[in-house]
């Protein structure tokens, strides 16, 4: 039967590095609805999951519900990041995406959106940056 389990260790390592870089906080607060991501992020010592999007520093958008939450932009300083490339086109507030293309994991950040959110990423992420979508 089909089982879509994420590899815990590598997923956590990647997202910890990513979210700590995106947020200026030492222990960013993450909101995510996707069960698998939630189960992995709960074990993290570098970030904390929250059950209310209003409390989050970063919202990880994995479905249309969280996309709508992000689009309402009720929480001024919340950073929106997604696991689906096509959501990037559906919201101007999403600063970047981690998605799959042809069997390879991809990272993408949109420079002008990062500027609007006043986020400055380290040099390590420059090669994944595009100016506009």
């Amino acid at each position, binding site marked *: *039967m*089909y*089982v*879509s*389990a*994420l*590899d815990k*260790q*590598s*997923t956590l*390592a*990647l997202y910890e*590095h990513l979210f700590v870089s995106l947020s200026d906080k030492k222990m960013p607060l993450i909101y995510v609805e996707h069960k698998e991501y939630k189960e992995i992020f709960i074990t993290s010592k570098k970030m904390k999951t929250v059950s209310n999007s209003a409390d989050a520093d970063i919202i990880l958008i994995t479905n249309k519900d969280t996309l709508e939450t992000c689009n309402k932009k009720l929480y001024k300083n919340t950073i929106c990041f997604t696991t*689906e*490339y*096509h959501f990037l086109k559906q919201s101007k507030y999403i600063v970047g995406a981690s998605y*799959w*293309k*042809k*069997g*390879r*994991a991809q*990272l993408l950040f949109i420079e002008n959106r990062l500027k609007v959110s006043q986020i400055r990423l*380290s*040099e*390590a*992420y*420059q*090669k*994944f940056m595009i100016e506009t979508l």
Partner: protein
Amino acid sequence: MHIFFKKILYSFIVLTLFLYGSEVDKLLETYSQKNDLSQKTIDENKGHLVLFSRDKLERMHAKTLKDVLKTTPILYYRENRYGFPDPLASGSFESYRSNFIRLYIDGVEITQGWLGSGLVLYGDVNIDFVDHIEFYYMTPSFETITESAYLTIFLYSKEPPKEGGGEVNLIQGSRGYASQTLNYGEKNEDYSYMLNFSHTDAQRQKVANGTDTPLLRDFERTQLFSYIKTQKQTAHLQIMKKNMKSLAGPSLDATPLISTMNYLNIHLDYSLALSEHWDVTFSYDWVKGEYHFEDDLPFVSLGNIPSTLLKFEGKNSTYTGELSYQNVFEKHRIDAGLKIRSKVLDAYDVVNLAELPFNFSKETFFSLYGQDQYHLGENTLLTFGIQYNHIDRDGNQEMDDLLQLRLGYIFSNEVWSYKAYIFRSMFTTDSNTRYLLSYESRERKPQVSIGITQEVAYKSEDFNLRLMLLTMQDENGLIQNEGKGHTKYFFTIFNYNYNFDLDNKMDLQFSYAHYKDIFYLDTLDDYSGYVSFSNQYKDVDFYNSVVWHQDSLTYEHFFDWTSSISWNVNHNLSFTLKGENILDKARDSGLIRIDPRSGNFLTPLSMSSIDQRIMLEMEYRF
């Protein structure tokens, strides 16, 4: 600050940035590898694995299983005299020889029933729907096979969570080659589904036969692949229609006037997880074949009358049911199950033949298996398997009882792994041969193959190394070198894969096969090598590979060079220019010819199964 120290500091900062930059690459690469779909399906106990991951298939721009099979070690793509994909073909007059190779899609075997292995029609299948491919060499584990095999090929389809949405792919090639595919998949909370449609019209390189009418192998193929999956259930529907010019066909001197074959194939399967430990699977394969062969001189006897025409239609159905059980008891992982396969010849109508000379029409396999994987320690596993097959046939054909055994040892830690198997496999004459050929073939006793295989591998952050040593002996071989004894095999395969960085990789492979008493030869040595480089620079991908072959028949060197360059215009659109067999020096194989008047052997025809071709491809995702 002194200038010397400024330089040191600057170098340190640059080095730190460089190292820090590569840290993200490494995190991404590890994340890619660990979450690759192949990690969910690989079973190290299925045999000796040669893996083509999704990433590898994309870098190769592999569009058909043929593109992959031409690079595999020991058993590689070859076509027989009918134009069928038949890696074990000898060039002689047998209709199909590769029944020792079995093909699976999403874990369910695709079989052509009467013809045997699904490779007959799927050997060059369009693989646009495929995520990754696993090749398991030598003795497979018994929970995977119904009929014996010593190479099992597993195609696993793409998954919508990773590949949601749609994709259109258009290819236009030289010599009138064109292919179109459309793929769409979606996942919601309760189920996921995928539809993949492809059409290929291939005008292929002609094969000169010394007449004004060269041999043709053009084909037109339309295929549909689809599935729907829930947490506990999976159903597949596959349809393939293939019309082909079939090369020499049964023409003795390879100068047919007409040689065509048309197929329609339907595959349906359904799997259900009854509980945590019990699974059930049903599958149905139906094939209709229309065959038309004509020659200027008689090449076949119909009712003891020599004929220059052979025109017939055959239909057969294969029904397979499987009930399997799996559980863990302390250190034992137990797999057991019952499989039943019934192959039924539904119809067989031959023009100018009123009555068929025999009434064999049904063959039923009953298979009972058990397997124990015992954890000796944290990194070691001992496995023992046993399978008993009973084969029942109608029409006064002999029944067969087969007993197969498999003992294995696996050691694996983060860096090293070692695998070893001893096995005993049994094979019977396939239904098509049993039905069509002489009584002698029909009554041939089952073949017993005994073998020992070993594999050692080393894995580091940047490279992988692997060496396989495989040896086997056939007793009562189904195809024997008359009066010479049992066929013996020795294979060795060496692999080295190196990752320069996230975007640049190299793969190296070398294989050597030694055969004793095969194809009317005392010995045969076969050497092959494969090297590939895949590189990415900004929006452009490059791929180059060379497959090299040489054997002890001619000692001639063959080189199959494939090269592609892709431009990723944006996330949705890419263009690729690809050349296959660019030097037109891919491996040749011989086609045996006999003078129908004298019965003497003629010089074999030489032909390559890999066409020289240039293609332009457009890929659009939506």
